[in-house]
């Protein structure tokens, strides 16, 4: 059965969309930009980072574009002072929560967190830095997990479960204590379910997951490979 056509407005412009699409999908299909961080095309959206928030007429609540399905007649605003203010705060909190020393990071210059901050003109944060003591897991023969740079977007969790089917990664604890863990909180190198495919590394938007042997600025991620792999396998979830 063909999907029902819906019409919505994005920033005032009338757009034809298809039932079942999220606001983000409808926006992308029509060339409208909404900033995202935890979203990766092909993976189940979870709404972890709150960067993609939009205004919807008729309500004061903000909605995450990546997880909110469109409705007929919906009118969406993607840019406003309020949205910029809130998105900025979300980004600033990510910076103060862990230790992002971009100058010595493998992903410097190619990091999605860093480039969003630049795009939003963030020259400083308003909160006190947390400077937590966090570990680096070097036990895997090919890859590194550096918690100092993890933004808990769960792309690694999702790509490993949705695409590789290995379910190595999970989130543990809550709030500020949340961490990414492999298997039942074992060292990555001791994981028996990890297939060494490296999809999590490619999907990670920051320098938290990287290949060994790369120095500052050298780690190039291929998130496009993840998305095209999903497309080819038709595992659209």
């Amino acid at each position, binding site marked *: 059965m063909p999907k029902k056509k819906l019409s919505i407005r994005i920033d005032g412009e009338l757009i034809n969309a298809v039932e079942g699409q999220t606001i983000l999908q409808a926006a992308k299909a029509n060339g409208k930009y909404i900033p995202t961080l935890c979203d990766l095309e092909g993976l189940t959206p979870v709404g972890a980072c709150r960067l993609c928030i939009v205004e919807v007429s008729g309500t004061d609540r903000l909605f995450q574009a990546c997880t909110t399905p469109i409705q007929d007649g919906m009118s969406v605003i993607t840019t406003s002072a309020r949205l910029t203010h809130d998105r900025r705060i979300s980004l600033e909190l990510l910076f103060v929560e862990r230790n992002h020393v*971009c*100058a010595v990071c493998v992903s410097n210059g190619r990091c999605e967190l860093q480039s969003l901050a630049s795009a939003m003109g963030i*020259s400083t944060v308003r909160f006190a830095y947390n400077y937590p003591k966090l570990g680096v897991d070097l036990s895997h023969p090919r890859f590194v997990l550096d918690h100092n740079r993890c933004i808990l977007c769960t792309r690694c969790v999702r790509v490993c479960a949705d695409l590789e089917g290995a379910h190595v990664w999970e989130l543990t604890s809550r709030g500020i204590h949340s961490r990414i863990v492999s298997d039942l909180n074992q060292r990555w190198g001791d994981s028996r379910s990890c297939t060494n495919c490296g999809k999590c590394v490619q999907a990670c938007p920051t320098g938290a997951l990287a290949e060994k042997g790369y120095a500052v600025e050298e780690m190039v991620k291929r998130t496009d490979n993840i998305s095209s792999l999903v497309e080819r396998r038709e595992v659209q979830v």
Partner: protein
Amino acid sequence: MKKVKVATVWLDGCSGCHMSLLDMDAAIISLAQKIDLVYGPLVDAQEFPEDVDVTLVEGAVSSHDDVNKLQKVRQRTHLLISLGDCAVTGNVPAMRNSIPVNKLLQRIYVEGAQEGKVVPTDGVPALLKQARPLREFVKVDMCLPGCPPPAKTIAAVISDLVDGKKREAGYAVKFG
């Protein structure tokens, strides 16, 4: 035209920001005609002068000495700029922040030393528990992140200020 009084200060940083400042090629010549560099590692002055128009501070605040210097600089400066990631975020100097100071000094000067295994105390300022950004100690008027900030950006900021244009935003910014 009265020259604009500019100072630079070097706290806990690697001097890379100062190198970047010098790296602005020919722009430095026209700038030099409009500014008086009144204090900093690049000039001789011993005491931080009164009534400075613009001060660029490189480095994180890491010691009691840094705090005192910074407070004096703030009192005597009209416009204070955090220059570079160390001044803005703590950056590399702040990587020690989760290690207790005595353990850190012990590790470096005793366990890690080949000879003269003793933690220096004479003539060196006592470290703060953590290295932290300037704005956690004093009011900062503008931040220029980067490790180091590009020479072009520094040049643009200074010449805009000299020409009386204080642009709050609009400069390209990037951490790292």
